[in-house]
């Protein structure tokens, strides 16, 4: 909640800072679009503000760093209390006499295992205690184990650090809070701060060092590049097979009544079935090896490519077909010179979608069962609660997916420059 508030305020503050600060100081280019006065509602006049993009990315890393106690972040959210502290409790014996004792508390980072602080028992019927606790966790202290007056005999705590307290209440002290349970035991909670523990979200430098480690030493018997390479290889092979079958199928559906009638029910039925739903069946049929995954990706790409090719054929302006025929083109020539080039923009759009779906599907399939691959990497890491590897894997999967899309867009621009221009 606090993070969301901070994020929103950076969003708004950044807007005003850039709008009325930076942009005033800079010479802006006066191209045509910048002269449009109607921008609200004119989508073509809306261009991404690069300042916003930069601030957005920086903000994410800054928040990530600040709330994980990263060494790289200049500011930090309040850290959990770590170190030694103590509280004093006042015990009242059944006869009404009181005695003070201290509880020395050693708060350590999660995962460490320090020794208890050394104390002497002290005097009186209430004896001093020593406890250890992980940062931010609650520790129930059965204070009267070593005391001469026991709770079952009617002894009870009447004050903590001098502040009066009864069962069910709590008081706070400098490095946390203390409460009494219904049965009269002490519960100490050292202040947790606002940072995430590494097991939930490791700081960025841990993810980076993990990346360096895995990229040099590998993980689970395969190098990082083998994991990613196998995922990519499956996607590319599955997509190519899907396109190889799907595009001719789509063309046939766009060109022949019989093909259209025959395959329409199949394609229309298979299209809304998410490829993930096929994973169990594919595992039953083909096992968890490469064949099963490639079949799955083939099926994921097939319908998308078939529908894209069909749309490409039906998108041909009929006058182009008529023109080609009356210029003497044969059916084959019409196919080669008119229908195929005319459908390329649609096919590229389909290919971009299919590559995206395949990349998502391969990761999901590897989560279910695989010996190597990006998805398998994060799945195994999550079983061992290696959150840094999980985050690294997610970032790499995102970067690769984005990279695939950019490559497809570049290919589209160079191969079909006429897209949207007819």
């Amino acid at each position, binding site marked *: 909640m606090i993070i969301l508030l901070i994020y929103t305020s950076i969003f708004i503050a950044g807007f005003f800072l850039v709008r009325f600060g930076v942009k005033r100081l800079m010479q802006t280019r006066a191209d045509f679009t910048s002269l449009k006065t109607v921008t609200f509602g004119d989508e073509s006049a809306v261009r991404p503000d690069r300042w916003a993009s930069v601030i957005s990315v920086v903000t994410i890393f800054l928040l990530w760093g600040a709330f994980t106690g990263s060494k790289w972040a200049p500011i930090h959210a309040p850290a959990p209390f770590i170190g030694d502290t103590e509280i004093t409790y006042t015990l009242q014996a059944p006869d009404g006499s009181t005695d003070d004792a201290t509880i020395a508390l050693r708060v350590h980072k999660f995962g460490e295992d320090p020794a208890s602080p050394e104390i002497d028992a002290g005097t009186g019927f209430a004896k001093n205690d020593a406890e250890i606790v992980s940062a931010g966790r609650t520790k129930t202290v059965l204070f009267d184990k070593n005391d001469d007056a026991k709770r079952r005999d009617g002894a009870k705590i009447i004050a903590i650090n001098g502040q009066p307290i009864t069962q069910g209440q709590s008081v706070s002290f400098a490095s946390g809070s203390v409460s009494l349970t219904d049965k009269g035991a002490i519960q100490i909670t050292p202040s947790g701060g606002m940072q995430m523990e590494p097991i939930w979200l490791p700081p960025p430098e841990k993810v980076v060092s993990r990346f360096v480690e895995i990229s040099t030493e590998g993980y689970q018997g395969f190098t990082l590049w083998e994991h990613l390479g196998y995922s990519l290889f499956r996607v590319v092979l599955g997509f190519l097979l899907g396109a190889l079958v799907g595009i001719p199928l789509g063309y046939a559906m766009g060109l022949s009544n019989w093909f259209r009638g025959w395959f329409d029910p199949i394609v229309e039925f298979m299209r809304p079935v998410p490829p993930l739903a096929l994973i169990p069946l594919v595992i039953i049929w083909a096992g968890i090896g490469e064949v099963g995954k490639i079949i799955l990706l083939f099926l994921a790409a097939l319908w998308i490519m078939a529908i894209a090719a069909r749309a490409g054929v039906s998108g041909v302006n009929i006058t182009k077909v008529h023109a080609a025929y*009356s210029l003497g083109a044969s059916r084959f020539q019409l196919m080669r010179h008119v229908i195929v080039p005319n459908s390329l923009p649609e096919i590229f759009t389909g290919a971009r979608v299919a590559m995206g779906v395949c990349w998502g599907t391969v990761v999901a399939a590897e989560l279910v069962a695989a010996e190597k691959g990006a998805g398998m990497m994060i799945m195994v890491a999550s079983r061992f609660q290696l959150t840094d590897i999980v985050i690294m894997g997610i970032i790499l999967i995102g970067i690769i997916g984005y990279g695939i899309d950019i490559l497809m867009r570049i290919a589209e621009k160079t191969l079909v420059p006429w897209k949207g221009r007819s």
Partner: protein
Amino acid sequence: MSTLSIDKISMRFDLPNGSHVQALKDISLEIKSGELMSVLGPSGCGKTTLLNIVAGFLAPTEGSMTLNNHHITGPDAERGMVFQQGALFEWMSVRENVSFGPRMKGQREAEWRDNVDHLLDIVGLRDFKDKSVFELSGGMQQRVALARCLANDPDVILMDEPLGALDALTREKMQGLVLKLWKETGKTIILITHSVEEALLLGERLLVLAPRPGRIHREYRLPFADMGVGHDLREVKKHPEFAEKREEILSMIWDMEEEIMGNAAEASA
């Protein structure tokens, strides 16, 4: 000689609701080689249907057509077509578009290069031959379409409102170009248009179709096309006879339109 004869063509098709449409009825025509005939009529009179039948894209339900003494059964390179717009191939350069016909016949570049370059000269696009067609203006694109049709050396050129999408100035220039090409190449041309002025200016013969069912209403033989070749078309338009014919045909088409509206009003009443 290449005479196009159209013999009693009718076109009738069923609608999904069980009724039927008589799009054309008993159209008979004889067009001699080298004639330029413009076809005019109110919207819905079947002009485009007639052209599509002659082009071979539609089959008539009755009647037959012959060109050079053989029957027309489908599209063929002997009948070239110029469309209103959208018929150019965006994935090809201007030159590739113009040379499409010869290339489909399997000619090598050496065989078509001179003719294509010459046609590009005539339509004034020599400097644009390596451009993509989507970089050209609408008028330039129609000049490419004309050149592409001519490069294929058809016997008959069918034009379906080829200048309909152009602005008035470009249109006037293009009308001059059509006349010039007609005179230089001696092609038979059938030109469909919505514009009475264009039909009068370009048509050596002018066919007025009447709607429901589409049929020949009247035919004119006009001197203006010959007058316009090589001359300022605006001078032709100032000719008293031109103004007179324009008024006559305009009121004829207006009458037909009103009749349609009247029938529609009765039918709905």
